[in-house]
């Protein structure tokens, strides 16, 4: 379980998060949604120890953020980084191989290589495995970063807007993969999404943030409504139900 207890956070004396508490039990996909600047990325980066926690407590299973060793946490919690500039001499196989680093510290064994090949197959990256990262499309790169996080074999996975710059096919197939990971491998996934329709279609639970606080929390069909869109996002988009899933008409 990821347990977030009374977390507040300020940047340069500007309060960003106000006393946020949230429990994410093992299993399933939890999507964080909310308007720009609500504090979603900030909350995620505190869980991922990318920013230092000052007030409150966060723990992942028995490991407490800020107290446990980074190396131990890396075996439990993986982050999918945005595909920022990385060395142009890195192939997709090399990148996925880095996912094994927490387990082998630079000296990969046969089981690490096996896991990399399995990951490449699962993500359909085999035909591209030998390509350098600057020789593939943005969507393929994104998929490779997701594969790296998967190869890390952690029970928890954090993603911040992984669908950025992806077309509809790439978005759906990445979300499908995450769904499979949650269902088949029992992974716990915490993901920041902007598109409420994707969140409602693929997540088990939505956590809505507004101005540094949690504004709503629950199953998609309970949370997504025209009223919520008006209250939280300040927009009056109609919502209808299709196949028992709420759909926002844009």
């Amino acid at each position, binding site marked *: 379980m990821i347990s977030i207890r009374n977390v507040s956070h300020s940047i340069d004396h500007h309060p960003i998060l106000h006393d946020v508490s949230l429990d994410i039990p093992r299993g399933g996909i939890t999507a964080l949604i909310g308007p720009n600047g609500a504090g979603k990325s900030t909350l995620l980066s505190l869980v991922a120890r990318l920013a230092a926690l000052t007030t409150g407590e966060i723990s992942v299973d028995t490991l407490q953020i800020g107290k446990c060793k980074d190396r131990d946490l890396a075996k439990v919690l993986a982050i999918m*980084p945005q595909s920022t500039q990385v060395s142009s001499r890195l192939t997709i196989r090399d990148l996925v191989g880095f*996912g094994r680093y927490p387990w082998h510290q*630079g000296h990969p064994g046969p089981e690490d290589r096996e896991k990399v090949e399995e990951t490449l197959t699962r993500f359909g990256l085999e035909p591209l495995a030998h390509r350098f990262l600057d020789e593939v499309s943005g969507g393929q790169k994104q998929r490779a970063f997701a594969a790296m996080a998967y190869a890390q074999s952690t029970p928890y996975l954090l993603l911040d807007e992984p669908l950025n710059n992806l077309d509809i096919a790439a978005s759906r197939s990445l979300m499908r993969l995450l769904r499979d990971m949650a269902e088949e491998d029992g992974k716990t996934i915490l993901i920041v999404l902007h598109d409420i329709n994707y969140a409602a279609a693929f997540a088990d639970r939505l956590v809505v943030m507004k101005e540094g606080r949690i504004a709503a929390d629950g199953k998609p069909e309970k949370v997504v409504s025209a009223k919520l869109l008006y209250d939280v996002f300040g927009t009056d988009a109609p919502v209808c139900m299709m196949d028992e899933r709420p759909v926002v008409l844009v």
Partner: protein
Amino acid sequence: MLRNRFLILGTLLALSVVGYMTLGAVGSWSFLIPFRASKLAALALVSVCLAVSTVLFQTITANRILTPSVMGFDALYVFILTAIVHSFGAAGYAAIPAPLLFVMNLVLMTGMGLVLFSLLIKGGRGDILKMVLTGIVLGILIRALTGFLQRMIDPSEFQTIQSVSFARFTYVDKLNLAMAAVVALPALVMAWRMRHRLDVIALGPVAATGLGETPKRGQRQALVLICLLTASATALAGPMSSGGAGPSSFFGLIVAALAHMITPSYKHSVLLPSAAMLACITLIGGQTVMERVLHLSTPLAVVIEVLGGITFLILLLKRRMA
């Protein structure tokens, strides 16, 4: 492919070493061999230090066009020298025992280097322009301070500074060489042991943190190594830009760029040895060819500066195009 490239580099390195030891011999071998061997050892130590510190620096600052000496390490050396002569006079300077002077240089340069670099690192990774500008401005500031101090020094004493900061590498003090090695060799071993962590840090702060590395800690450790390596090379050989064989603004840049070109890889286990070998080939081979084969009186440093300047421009232009 990498294997063959390393074989070629190894051959070139062996040729440079043999050429340096044997070509143009005058006088008895029993005198020549130990004399040249200690110079060779000093050249090799300086080359490896500068190559490794540049590769580390480029990794932790995530750029390919900066070297630790762009930030004014040579300026620091001349500044320390000037400050000593200014405070104690030329006689006072001459009275300082060589080992003490060496240790003072090492400690001061490492210390000031650490302060400078940690300020620069704070300025933020990625903001490369700010870093370059701050570095250059600091270099100018140190040079201006040096000039100011030199103006207040007696002209005859000023001569001391000039002769000391120019004539280097004609004679290698064995004790200095030993002291530089005592500092540099452990630092080199530690740099080598960081190789896998450096690969991870090069993925960027988010990915590195996710994989269990702490980028800030890695950067700090690498900075300490960079300062120790650059300082011991400079304390041993003097700055290259003022005639010594030590840090030139561009030497590290050339060998790091060549390493990326000749042995392309993201792995520091490839880049570090490749850059070190290229540095030895450039400095030892270059010295041999210039002095013993072509009998040119142009100092090698000048050639390196010119070639390095061109490399720098090419790298800059390539960045603009990309």
